[in-house]
């Protein structure tokens, strides 16, 4: 007896979350599709080890591992610059926080460009920050679930989210400054 129907009922509703995590990690639509397919096969093979409860963190942990394995293969093949490297070039230049009298990010985040800026900024963050932000802000996972997905203690999740939010705000400010140097 295979437990396929049971697995499908639990796992298929998570596909949007699985795809979203995969694509935010590897930043390529076709690759994310491959990763989701592979991760679902792996999850099904390992389904006997699933202990019940909410399947989402368990499944997303497998998606994440599959994505990271894929990323490390891509890095070894050396054809693509990793996002960490891309990030290392640009970060740190705007380390200063906003001065209190400058318009806040909130005030400037008005208009059609808002979503685009936030997405571009998130894409620039190192994966360790990007993944906790995706899991928290988009998938609405608790710290405990994020800890299960990423395999780190809850305290680490908390500090990564803290730093991640700070970095995201910083990158966002930099992107907006670059595009509108004379913004008031």
């Amino acid at each position, binding site marked *: 007896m295979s437990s396929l129907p049971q697995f499908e009922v639990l796992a298929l509703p998570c596909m*949007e979350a699985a795809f979203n995590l995969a694509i935010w990690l590897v930043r390529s639509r076709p690759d994310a599709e491959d990763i989701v397919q592979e991760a679902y096969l792996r999850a099904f093979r390992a389904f006997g080890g699933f202990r019940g409860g909410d399947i989402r963190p368990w499944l997303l942990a497998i998606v994440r591992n599959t994505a990271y394995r894929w990323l490390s293969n891509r890095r070894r093949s050396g054809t693509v610059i990793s996002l960490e490297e891309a990030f290392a070039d640009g970060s740190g230049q705007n380390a200063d926080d906003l001065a209190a009298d400058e318009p806040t990010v909130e005030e400037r985040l008005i208009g059609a460009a808002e*979503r685009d800026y936030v997405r571009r900024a998130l894409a620039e963050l190192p994966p360790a920050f990007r993944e906790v932000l995706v899991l928290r802000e988009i998938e609405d996972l608790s710290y405990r679930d994020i800890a299960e997905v990423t395999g780190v203690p809850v305290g680490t999740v908390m500090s990564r989210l803290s730093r991640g939010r700070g970095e995201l705000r910083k990158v966002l400010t930099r992107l907006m400054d670059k595009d509108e140097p004379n913004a008031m």
Partner: protein
Amino acid sequence: MQCERARELLSPYLDGELSAEERRAVAAHLEGCRACSVEVNDFRRIGATLAEAGREPAPKALSARVRANLAREAEAQPTPITVLAAKPVRAGASHLLRGLMRQAAVIAAACVLSALATWWTMGTLGQQQRLEQDVLAAHVRSLLQDSPIQVASSDAHTVKPWFAGRADFSPEVKDLAGEGFPLVGGRLDYVGGRRVGAVVYKRRLHLINVFMWPSANPGEAAPRLVTRKGYNLLTWSRGGIDFWAISDLNAGDLAQLQTLL
């Protein structure tokens, strides 16, 4: 509380992961500190933008491909094959005949069982498919009308009593605005040859119809997801009520609503 300490706690403060005491301390600090309250507002705004626009929708065909892969995988898994008794036949014609008769009986019994199982499955499937059709039709009908609801209220205590006297049971109505599923209202609809309660929720721009009626079978049924014409249908039974939630919303969010109801 000093700024430095408050800043460490802003993020878990937003996520509701602080103790009550810490939460009060951070809130008090934010009252008096402009820099920190600017920062927390920015975090909140950026988070809301991400929640709204950060999701990369999965391609429609992906689900079908994953299911095909899984079906192949399940087939490839070795399944134990039951072999009909194949004992070595001993000498003696009557012995042989008795053995054959027994095998024939076993095969005949297996045939009857299989036919019964098929008949039962087909019957249930047909019923299930008709229900899916009805639910889909009711959902689309509600979208075509000027308003999907007869009683408009974001307050569960207004919607629930409205059903009293109109339906022969009390549908589940919950206030889930805090979880991102604001209540729109309720109405009566006609599904599966009976009057049913429909409670309408919203998720961002997506409308969700949750149909409910008293269950024919006692007991619980785990949620089951099907996709029809691009809509996700999630059905489950709990507490003597059959639930059908339908929307063009992604399956993950729909499953989240299921856990909240």
